[in-house]
């Protein structure tokens, strides 16, 4: 179907939107295209979208990746993520709509039936998504019954998680993404083609991992997989790698989706989404999901089911923390394969989803603290790169000391330099300003180093006025430097006005020059050099100083 075309994400979005609902489709079109564009490049996370929405998926992934990569950079990434997430919601909706209307993608076969059964509902849900972002929990609950079919898919959960994580990644959307939105996004994703989506979005490595894990997990206990994989996906979410979702989703969806159609799944999915968000408390979703999947598949899952069921109940009572707990517990209690595959991939260092490692506390508070610690340590590492000579420093305390010292020294340097600048009164005409700016921006490292050595020198009176005496002589020599013609004139004009010392400064100037080579503009230096023809061209200082010295004497 056209929707499935990878490149047609923007194209089909509008069409699908139009078909589905007039409510929010239109405004979403633009974001969708933007979203898809962003996602294409970046991450595998966009797997879910890549399905029939493959284009959609790819774009979300790209945006996701962009957001993820931009994270260290700061605000930019966050903004992008928010945008992406917003768009994502719309895309999900459109995806839903498209899938509903078209019922195509082969991958959706398992879902197509339920989809067909309630297309209008889904449409409504998808429509609601964009709105939900800001506000409303109401539509989501209503959609639960219809969305039940979709909720079952674990890939759906991961998608929802991804969505939420995207939002969290930006750091600003937590409030916006409530359960409903995530759920809806999930559902739309699910409908579209959970299998495809998960496949597409996942990273290569993760995919392989997931595949392996999937196989083993599926054989061992499908419910576990269902639970574990979404968890893994959640953890990877911010990291921009949701390969697991893709792979697992595909394999499992066929079997599990059809089975997991209870209405509760939907809430479970929502809960998963909220897990990743870690802000909103959607206890029901995760708990139910975990419980539902195990219930569907037995085997090892049985043991997991019970804890899951219990957890689900507790989740409903508790909230986010429980969700993360559950998600964290699942890898712990899940199959070794899943665990191993997840272990190499460290939980993302964002505050969207934290997965407790084996043997670590799964308390919600400790999880939150761990996330904070990881964030802080990440920032400290970044700072370590910035501060010169701090590669070997380890430990936060020492590093902080270094940082504080460095900032203090920089501030002191600024103060010192401003004091120096305040002692002189250089006349700066417009032309000089431009010339100076050019000069400054073309500064070379050697000059600065030399200057730093001079900082300790006793500041002598500014010999700026000294120059004009030399300039007329130089100028009359017929120097043909094109820039110098302007500069000397200006300099002369400005300098003659200057009342700074003239002849008395000669000796001092010479002395100063010897100790502190004068870094004059290239123009002037070239002038001097040409005028006297004795000074070799140098990048700023030595020649000027020597030339002046000669002139002086």
């Amino acid at each position, binding site marked *: 179907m056209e929707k499935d075309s990878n490149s047609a994400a923007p194209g089909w979005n509008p069409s699908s939107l139009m078909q589905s609902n007039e409510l929010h489709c239109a405004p979403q079109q633009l974001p969708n295209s933007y979203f898809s564009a962003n996602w294409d490049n970046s991450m595998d996370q966009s797997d879910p979208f890549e399905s029939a929405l493959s284009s959609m998926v790819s774009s979300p992934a790209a945006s996701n990746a962009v957001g993820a990569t931009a994270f260290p950079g700061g605000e930019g990434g966050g903004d992008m993520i928010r945008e992406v997430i917003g768009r994502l919601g719309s895309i999900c909706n459109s995806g839903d709509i498209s899938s509903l209307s078209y019922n195509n993608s082969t991958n959706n076969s398992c879902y197509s039936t339920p989809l067909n059964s309630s297309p209008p509902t889904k449409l409504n849900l998808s429509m609601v998504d964009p709105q939900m972002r800001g506000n409303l929990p109401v539509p989501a609950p209503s959609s639960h019954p219809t969305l039940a079919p979709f909720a079952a898919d674990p890939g759906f959960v991961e998608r929802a998680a991804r969505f939420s994580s995207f939002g969290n990644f930006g750091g600003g959307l937590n409030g916006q993404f409530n359960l409903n939105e995530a759920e809806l996004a999930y559902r739309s994703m699910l409908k579209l083609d959970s299998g495809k989506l998960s496949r597409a979005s996942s990273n290569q490595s993760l995919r392989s991992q997931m595949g392996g894990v999937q196989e083993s997990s599926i054989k061992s206990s499908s419910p576990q997989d269902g639970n574990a994989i979404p968890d893994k996906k959640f953890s990877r979410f911010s990291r921009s790698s949701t390969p697991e979702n893709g792979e697992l989703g595909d394999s499992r969806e066929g079997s599990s989706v059809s089975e997991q159609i209870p209405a509760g799944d939907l809430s479970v999915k929502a809960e998963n989404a909220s897990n990743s968000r870690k802000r909103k408390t959607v206890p029901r979703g995760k708990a139910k999901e975990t419980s539902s999947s195990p219930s569907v598949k037995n085997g090892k899952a049985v043991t997991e089911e019970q804890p899951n069921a219990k957890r689900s109940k507790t989740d409903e009572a508790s909230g986010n923390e429980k969700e993360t707990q559950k998600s964290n517990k699942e890898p712990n209690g899940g199959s070794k394969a899943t665990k191993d595959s997840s272990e190499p991939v460290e939980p993302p260092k964002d505050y969207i989803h934290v997965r407790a490692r084996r043997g670590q506390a799964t308390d919600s508070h400790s999880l939150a603290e761990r996330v904070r610690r990881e964030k802080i340590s990440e920032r*400290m590492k970044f700072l370590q790169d910035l501060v010169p000579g701090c590669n070997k420093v380890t430990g936060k*305390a020492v590093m902080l000391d270094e940082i504080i010292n460095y900032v203090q020294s920089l501030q002191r340097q600024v103060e010192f330099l*401003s004091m120096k600048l305040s002692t002189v009164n250089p006349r700066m005409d417009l032309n000089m300003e431009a010339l100076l700016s050019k000069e400054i921006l073309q500064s070379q490292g050697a000059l600065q180093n030399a200057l730093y050595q001079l900082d300790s020198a006793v500041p*002598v009176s500014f010999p700026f006025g000294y120059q004009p005496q030399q300039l007329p002589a130089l100028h009359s020599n017929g120097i043909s430097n094109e820039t110098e013609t302007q500069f000397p004139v200006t300099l002369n004009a400005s300098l003659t006005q200057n009342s700074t010392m003239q002849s008395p400064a000669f000796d001092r100037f010479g002395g100063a020059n010897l100790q502190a080579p004068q870094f004059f503009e290239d123009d002037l230096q070239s002038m001097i050099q040409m005028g006297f023809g004795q000074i070799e061209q140098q990048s700023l200082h030595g020649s000027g100083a020597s030339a002046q010295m000669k002139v002086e004497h």
Partner: protein
Amino acid sequence: MNSRSLLLSPNPNSLKSRFTKGLLRALSRINKHRQQPRSSREIRKRHRLIKAAAYGSMASSVGNRRAWSRALLWKIRNQTRRGYAATRNIGSSTRQLSMKKRICDLQKGNNSKNRVEVGGLGQVDKLRRLVPGGQVMHTCSLLEETAHYMKCLATQVKVMTRIVEVYNIP
């Protein structure tokens, strides 16, 4: 005589270029009306002005993207608006009140949630004092702001040394 068209650098939009332009403009403004400062008071005043110009132009070139630049701009604007004394004693300005409130909340939040993860020996507090606007930030955002602030400070120092060189100040 029109050398305005001189290219500034490989990247005319870089932080360094913007800062240089702003600083030079401010310096020319400061130096326009004054003769060579003789009295120490005058020199001190000019020193303050130049320092404010340096930080102000740096914050302007960063814009409103960073919390520290916003805080710095706000502080400098207050400084120029109410005089130098105002910066020392902001008193009961609404912003100060709101900031104090934020500080209290932040500290409370920190105490309850953060459990001294990055406590050290009061280093984080020192850092808060150093970075403009750092009093009301959470620790992790404080570190992020510190990184950007450090980068801008280094640029500032480089450009100012360059200016000093150009002026041949020994």
